């Protein structure tokens, strides 16, 4: 009895080990472009002052991609999966500007603004252009497929009518591949203007 017990137990252990399966799906299943904020003069990371809020929306629709981010030095933006060019509008306005919510007392709707609180979207935005090539990505049959991007070009255009203190100066591409990794893709340099 003892003589075949050991090989049998080894066989059972082998099967049990082989029967174990694990699913290695990434925790992040949304692919986002990592953008860092830098000072155009010192080229050092810049933390947005809490008095200023950054909102980003695509040029061709009303979707808000980034809603009033403040006190941060980086942010994430999604890229279009079905197209090869993104045109993104940057609204960098004082946080007191109205960009959303319904004020029942004032009777305003989202983004309309009031006399004392202009709407953030009423200011002239700066523009970021990102050219990229999207490629479907397969990890495992257990994990949903996603689209990775390879950024080929990134440029900015500051609005000549921007009367605010901060504006986009330039952008630098530091990593072409946009995937699940939390690695910076773009460095966005802000410069101060003569306006208050």
């Amino acid at each position, binding site marked *: 009895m003892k003589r075949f017990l050991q090989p049998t137990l080894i*066989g059972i252990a082998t*099967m049990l080990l082989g029967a174990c399966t694990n699913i290695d799906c990434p925790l992040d299943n949304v692919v986002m472009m990592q953008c860092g904020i830098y000072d155009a003069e010192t080229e050092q990371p810049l933390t947005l002052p809490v008095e200023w809020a950054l909102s980003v929306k695509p040029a061709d*629709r009303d979707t808000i991609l980034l809603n009033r981010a403040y006190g941060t030095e980086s942010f994430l933006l*999604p890229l*279009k999966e*079905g197209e090869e060019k993104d045109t993104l509008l940057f609204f960098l306005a004082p946080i007191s500007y109205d960009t959303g919510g319904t004020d029942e007392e004032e009777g305003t709707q989202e983004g309309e603004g009031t006399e004392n609180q202009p709407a953030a979207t009423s200011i002239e935005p700066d523009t970021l252009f990102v050219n990229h090539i999207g490629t479907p990505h*397969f990890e495992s049959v257990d994990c949903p*497929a996603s689209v990775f991007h390879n950024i080929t070009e990134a440029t900015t255009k500051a609005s000549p009518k921007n009367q605010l203190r901060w504006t986009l100066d330039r952008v630098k591409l530091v990593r072409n591949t946009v995937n699940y990794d939390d690695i910076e893709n773009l460095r966005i340099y802000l410069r101060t203007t003569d306006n208050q």
Partner: protein
Amino acid sequence: MTTLRTFAFIFALLTTSSLLSATSLQKSTDLLQGNCDRPTLTVTAEDSVVKNATDSVPDKKKRVTYASKEEAAKALEKAKELPTFAGFSVGFDVCGAAMAVLGSWGQYEAVARANLKGRYFPTVECGIGYSHHEDETTEIRYSVNAPYFRLGMDYNLANDVASGNRILLGARYGFSSFQYDLDGPDLIDPVYGTATPFHFSGLKGCNHWLELCAGLEAKVVGILHIGWSIRYKFRISNKPSAVGSPWYVPGFGKNDGHALGGSLHILIDI
């Protein structure tokens, strides 16, 4: 459920193999302890004449004279040695075939090996890895049907090499170059709502890996052997395609840096 049935089937085969090998091992142990009924050569110190220990084979009494006990022991030991080329075996893997039929992937594998002195077994394994799997959650379908090859050597640790029962330790080098198909529902952009098709065929993959094997083998009857082995595989090269790495690699299993597997071989001596 399918995985459970697969391993229940394999467990039944392994148990059968172990029972048969235990019976053979018991007989080997009796031989070593001198409890069998085969004739043995003995030498007495007084007259150095060899006598038969038993009368179970009365028609084949064989008298050989040796000068001393040591010479007789050496002659007995030499009689047990196998020649340098002691034979050739072919066989197939039952475990992989069962997995191919019952599970998400598997392989149909043939084995050929030489027997060198009952100690060294250079082995060639080749087969076809098969997978045609669709995940019920993601609805992604993965298909591959491609060959693979393994080359290696086993070493027999058992004392009695002539008995046909073996304790094997070995290593393999594996290789597979294959094409696979991926198919799934369109990818919907969660922000913009656009659809991107997800249909790919003929994606190429190429993997190299090494295996460490350990197992037992029993002589069932005549030229028939059954053996099983545990294999630890570690990948040394993986070439991903444009959309990523393959999910199943023929001969290796689920694509990862390392994998654990097993085999149940039925072999015939030629």
